[in-house]
């Protein structure tokens, strides 16, 4: 039913008890494959662009910011470009508002001579800038004043991808930074930014544009004259989806944008080539969950198909344990052992279960009932019992952790089996959210802790 294999008994579970005493690291059973070493990538002066892509909610923005910070603190002059409308990067970098120009981030360790700049993409501003750059003044004013353009450029879904790539091209052209880290938009299809130039091209070569453009050329400026030309042909098809809709707006818009398409396309093509260039490194970001890794596998395949240089996979939120020698099954069995006396105890009421001193007197009779096995006063018994209860809880918590570990490992193994060539950097899960440079630095340390000589585990030994 499920493609997920039912939890195969953990290797350590079937092992004799004696084996449990050894740190077998059994949850890291399969060969983990190549390791993504982040520092050499960041330090290499040939690395000029790092693109972080991945599905939503996997920590893409945090990863991009952490990489930018780390590179800057290692001496590079970095700019981080983020697109996310939730302004998470702004929050995590302690900057209240990022605008469409890169701002220097204060508070970084700059002894290595690096700098960190960050910017948040303002789609409308970027769009306006393109219009101004590609159309003469009168034409630009007409476009900027067009109501459909205003709606569109203010951020309909999808324009983000264009604008992000456009901005990346601009930043690269300014040549002020030696490393640009890009956080990609949380797209419906996460590789829309790759498709954008191609789709634009296929649209420009399509018949629709000719239908739409023809009247515009006859009628000169975008006006009302051409509205009925080509309309009947279109409404037939569109009408099947919805009923004739919105064509006027489209036509007006297309006509107004007439002069700009050529420039658009040229630039989109240039950016696309820039992404394929050797100085670019793609990092696919994921969490060790089925959906996120399935999406990651899709990314890896698409990037390969597009000849985009993939540096590796950043696997965020990987859990670990310092007690992997204790299997989930054994922890659960032990927890049950500890909890058994409680069943007896419950006859006397639940009051004694909790470590509440004011119930000592009233529950002493029930406590003494259960105290046959324990020497000691009712109070001490009560204390023991709550310790046992705590211990049982600790063991259940551990069992849950171990089950999570093996689930994460299975998910990851499935990815590795499909893409054994992809280098992976694991980032240990943080209990809370990342808000500030300290947190980003911590994420950067965790990212860089993946080294080839110790591929088994980077542990969180305190």
């Amino acid at each position, binding site marked *: 039913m499920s493609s997920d294999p039912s939890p195969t008994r953990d290797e350590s579970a079937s092992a004799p008890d004696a084996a449990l005493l050894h740190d077998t690291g059994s949850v890291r059973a399969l060969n983990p494959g190549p390791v993504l070493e982040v520092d050499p990538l960041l330090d290499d002066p040939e690395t000029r662009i790092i693109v972080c892509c991945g599905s939503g909610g996997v920590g893409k923005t945090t990863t991009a910011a952490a990489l930018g910070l780390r590179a800057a603190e290692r001496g590079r002059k970095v700019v981080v470009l983020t697109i996310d409308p939730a302004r998470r990067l702004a929050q995590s970098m302690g900057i209240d508002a990022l605008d469409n120009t890169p701002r220097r981030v204060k508070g970084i360790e700059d002894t290595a001579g690096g700098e960190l700049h960050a910017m948040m993409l303002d789609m409308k501003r970027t769009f306006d800038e393109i219009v101004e750059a590609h159309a003469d003044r009168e034409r630009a004013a007409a476009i900027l004043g067009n109501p459909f353009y205003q709606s569109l450029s203010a951020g309909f879904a999808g324009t983000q991808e264009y604008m992000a790539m456009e901005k990346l091209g601009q930043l690269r052209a300014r040549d002020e930074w030696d490393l640009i880290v890009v956080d990609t938009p949380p797209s419906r299809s996460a590789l829309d930014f790759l498709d954008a130039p191609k789709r634009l091209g296929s649209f420009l070569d399509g018949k629709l544009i000719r239908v739409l453009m023809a009247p515009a050329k006859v009628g000169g400026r975008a006006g009302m004259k051409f509205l009925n030309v080509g309309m009947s042909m279109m409404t037939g098809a569109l009408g099947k989806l919805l009923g004739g809709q919105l064509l006027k707006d489209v036509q007006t818009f297309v006509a107004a944008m007439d002069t700009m398409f050529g420039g658009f396309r040229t630039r989109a093509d240039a950016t696309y080539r820039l992404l394929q260039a050797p100085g670019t490194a793609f990092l696919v970001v994921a969490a060790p969950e089925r959906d996120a890794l399935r999406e990651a596998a899709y990314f890896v395949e698409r990037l390969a198909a597009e000849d985009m240089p993939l540096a590796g996979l950043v696997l965020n939120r990987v859990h670990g*344990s310092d007690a992997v020698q204790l299997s989930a099954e054994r922890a659960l069995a032990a927890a049950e052992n500890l909890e058994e006396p409680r069943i007896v105890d419950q006859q006397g009421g639940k009051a004694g279960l909790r470590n509440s001193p004011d119930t000592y007197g009233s529950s002493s009779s029930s406590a003494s009932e259960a105290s046959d096995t324990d020497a000691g006063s009712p109070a001490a018994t009560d204390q023991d019992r709550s310790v046992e209860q705590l211990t049982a809880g600790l063991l259940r918590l551990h069992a849950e952790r171990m089950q999570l570990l093996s689930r994460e490992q299975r998910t990851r193994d499935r990815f590795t089996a499909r893409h054994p060539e992809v280098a992976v950097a694991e980032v240990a899960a943080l209990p809370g959210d990342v808000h500030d440079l300290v947190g980003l630095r911590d994420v950067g340390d965790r990212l860089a802790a993946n080294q080839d000589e110790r591929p088994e585990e980077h542990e969180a030994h305190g």
Partner: protein
Amino acid sequence: MSRLQVVSGKGGTGKTTVSAALALALATEGKRTLLVEVEGRQGIAQLFETEALPYEERKIAVAPGGGEVYALQMFYKMGGAGRALKKLGAIDFATTVAPGLRDVLLTGKACEAVRRKDRSGRFVYDYVVMDAPPTGRVTRFLNVNDEVAGLARIGPIHNQAQAVMRVLKSRETAVHLVTLLEEMPVQETADGITELRAAKLPVGRIIVNMVRPTILDQADLDLAHAVPRTAVAKSLSGAGLGGARRGGLAERLVDPLLRQADEYAERFALEREQRGVLTELGLPLRELPLLAEGMDLAGLYELASELRQQGIS
């Protein structure tokens, strides 16, 4: 209750799963629901373990008590009309150059399904559940027809856009937000509610997804701080986990286990704080458990019955 149920949420919160569970829950006892996926990732097909969905309304599941769930995937393998549009380059246009158009088509289609009646005048679908774009985009997505109506001030386009907005802003519609008990998704939920309300779109419920079970309560956590390590070691040893003396297995387990309890405590506190923030938003809360073995079809039915138990009307 509202017949158009829109489900949004931050990326990664599981809104597709929640949409699917909601569609199943609403279909229970002989109802018919339509599940519309707008993101085009075939997430619904994967959840229901069926092949990729074509551009047509197709029955994909039977709900407990005989109800039916249909699903519709837009912009994927469209039929004749789609091919014609594709040939023209109109799909490329709608999905990239003017992506707002796509939103117009999607919202229009969903509202059409809500209003559709059969020959006898009964609604074809009792409920339409829409797996909508993420919180950051959902208001603009739902409001796209308002913009259209503003652009085209008279005529059929205007009327159509207005008709769609009338459905979306009426009590026929409820927009639910899926969140996790984490800071960013909760913040986005709060922002999303503000935006939806400002746009006069009807906000439904907050659905907290992937809620982890309480393993240690506050009393346990307090005790974990106060308890002598030797007592825990003794207790572990008593449970059959080796020696409690220094260097024994039980003794060596104490620190790692207490560290895990510390991490749990930190998360526990964060979750409690976030639950508090959500409660203050003043909307009905529903909680769905984290399924230990990951999501599959059986899990989906489990979540659907959970939703029914908590009340979905």
